[in-house]
């Protein structure tokens, strides 16, 4: 086995020993213990494993360890700063935008990515960008509401 692959996750450096072709999802969860990122299908169809790579939402089950190496990865565990929730996390909390909450990490990561590229998305743009994320509990209206709330908060801060 190779000496290991350098990975940067949430600003921390790790050396991963899993084979280079291993999907990032399993490295995060099984090797690094970052279990906030969820397995939902392993096929890129549900969005539960969404993380940010270079700030953009990616399905961590569809990107290999070697492809993620050298690019900053952010997981749900990396959003909170000094005990303060990210505005999107806070908005999900305030809107009660979850039931079983298994999809929540992926929903939040996809929404963070959206708001990075579009600070004031329309409802249709939110729907479009979350279309790949499955919520089986049917909490979609509150998730949209949470993203809108978070966008509003970010706008306020920007002023």
């Amino acid at each position, binding site marked *: 086995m190779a000496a290991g692959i350098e990975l940067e996750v949430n600003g921390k450096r790790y050396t991963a020993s899993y084979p280079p072709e291993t999907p990032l999802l399993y490295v995060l969860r099984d090797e690094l213990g970052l279990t906030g990122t969820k397995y939902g299908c392993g096929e890129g169809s549900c969005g539960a494993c969404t993380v940010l790579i270079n700030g953009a939402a990616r399905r961590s089950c569809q990107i290999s360890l070697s492809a993620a190496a050298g690019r900053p990865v952010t997981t749900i565990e990396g959003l909170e700063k000094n005990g303060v929730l990210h505005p999107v996390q806070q908005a999900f909390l305030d809107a009660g935008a979850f039931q079983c*909450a298994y999809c929540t990490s992926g929903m939040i990561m996809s929404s963070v990515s959206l708001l990075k590229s579009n600070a004031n998305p329309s409802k249709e743009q939110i729907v479009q960008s979350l279309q790949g994320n499955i919520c089986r*509990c049917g909490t979609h209206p509150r998730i949209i509401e949470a993203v809108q709330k978070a966008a509003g908060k970010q706008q306020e801060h920007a002023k």
Partner: protein
Amino acid sequence: MSQAERAFAIDLEPERYEFRAVPMHQFALGRREFFKIFGAGLAVFAVAKDVSAMQETAPPGRGFHNEELPKEIGAWLHIGEDGTVTGFAGKAEIGQNIRTTLTQTIADELGVRFESVRMVLADTALTPFDAGTFGSRSTPTITPQLRRVSSAARDLLLEKAAKQWNVPVTKLVALDGKVTDPASGRSLRYAELAREDLRERQPPAQDPVKPASEWTIAGKPIPKVDAREFVTGAHRYTTDLRPDEMLRGKVLRPPSFGATLIAYDDSAAKNLPDVVIVRDGDFVGAAAPTVAAAEHALAVLKVQWKELPQISDREIFSYLKKNAQPSGEDRFRQTKGSVAEGMAAAAKKLEARYTVAYIAHAPLEPRAAVAQWTGDKLNVWMGTQRPFAVRDDLAAVFHVAEKNVRVIVPDTGSAYGGKHTSDAGMEAARLARAAGGRPVKLVWTREEEFTWAYFRPAGVIEVKSGVAADGKLSAWEFHNYHSGMSAIEPPYEVANLLTEYHQVPLVLRSGSYRGLAATANHFARETHMDALAHLAAMDPLEFRMNNLADARMRAVLEAGAKAFGWPRQKHTEGQGFGVAAGCEKGSYVATFAEISVDRKTGTVAVKKLVEAFECGAIVNPDGLRNQVVGAMIQGLGGALFEAIEFEKGRIGNAHFANYRVPRFRDVPEIEAILLDRKDLASAGAGETPIMAIAPSIGNAFYDATKVRLVNLPLRPELHLAG
């Protein structure tokens, strides 16, 4: 049918698709372990009254395990020296928010802050026996049970303080975790009062719980307990557990249902380092430090399977009809008057046949378990709705005492009736048995989920009916083949009635699904009622009202109609409006749908859903709204497009890429109207809000196109004739 008769019918409801008959055994609550964990300073109270009336019993005669609930208050409630109150219940939190509503219930009745109460749920070593988290039973059974023990506890604390101060108990107030004497201003914290052993004390003979009108903490939209854990990814679901020395398990699945192992050669796998291979009959599995290593071990095995001929989805409905078994059991049949006479008296008659496809639960957290043996003691962490049944299954299969098996349910990534069986726990425990004390985690893949879990059963429903000249139902004959008998009885007044449930041998493995067969039976009944209304030249809502006496049914229809603006004028081409309603498990629903049909593009869009729902006194309106809206959206899938494809014992669409579930784009404008009946006992709400979605949409499609859809999923776009 009267209210009492309907309640009786509900009690007879068999959750019939359970696969393993569970042995009847008595359960000795592990009190010693409980004391060890929760320490001294226990408030161990005397016998709670009326406990026998509160026993939750599983459906009769189906091999379900029933036990007496513990009678001591201490089994349900613990007041610590630091004032922390701990409640215990065997229910599992699966996203329905029961952890929050039970916390509210105890805080409200005991008179303590919400934040000072925590719930221990679904742990067979710590919580009282529970048949399972299903059937919308948690709120109607466990909520009053916890109220009773909290009320008795509060009264004993009051009594204790009264004796200490030598003042009449009626002069004292129990609130905010302390007993106060307003006259003198002195007070004692519950924690101080509870320090003394009250075991010998008897609770007062009469001890009513607070009526909903006096609730201060229950009835409020309190946010979900542990909500922060969920938005930070900190919550540990079963799939996230990583005990030291853990191995990962994988099971070798047969190529098709019912296939048997006829050749097995493990010579290439035997010498792999750090790998445990287990073959036990047709079960083959591996455990290794990583999933990849376990998969590799299974891949190098040489095996051969013998497959069986199987029914396919193309022939399922004719199969179900042909293979219906003569029931001869009265509990499957209800009769009243004479359907023949009712049909003879009818001015209009209608016969129709409806079908319902198999669908999958597809909970986003797949079935998973972590199992660890210590000698002949087994601990299993598992996302299940029936921890005690899983415990019993494991004890039976591994020939150990039930007290040696502990099943713990971490708050789970949803279930919808799909996590009743012990499969993943059984598999993990079997592998762990061979792993020398190391824990084994086993997580089903999505494909395994879609293939080896069980389904909501398919069904055929036939209805024969007559309407008299005055628009009253004169005859109603309703046959459900295979899918189930939940809500098979109509809520409508009809003198001549026959309803019958026909059992059929299983084709695909089938089981409970949110609402059971109530969704299928409501689809058939409410579609049929719509067709009858048109035959009788009456407005569909007016026709229902004309045949309804039940005030709660009428109330939800009226509330929904008002919000929806029924009857509505069509303003655009292709618009259609539909209504459907029903009641089940003590709650009532009326759903109104607006759809839009575009013949040019061949698309059908659900534009708006309005649903009025009533489940007695609302315990948490915020959580309830989440459940109701969630059921409506989940219901869209089964209504419009979800169907399991199968042939030769294989599932044809075992992936989210080809088994379509509702996504953001499918969600219409939604309005949920929650009627709060503080004068009525709280009923469960997880299931009923899903029942009327499909027929309301199908009826709206008829309104738009004059085409009647009689199969679920509706797939309306396939019925737009040229």
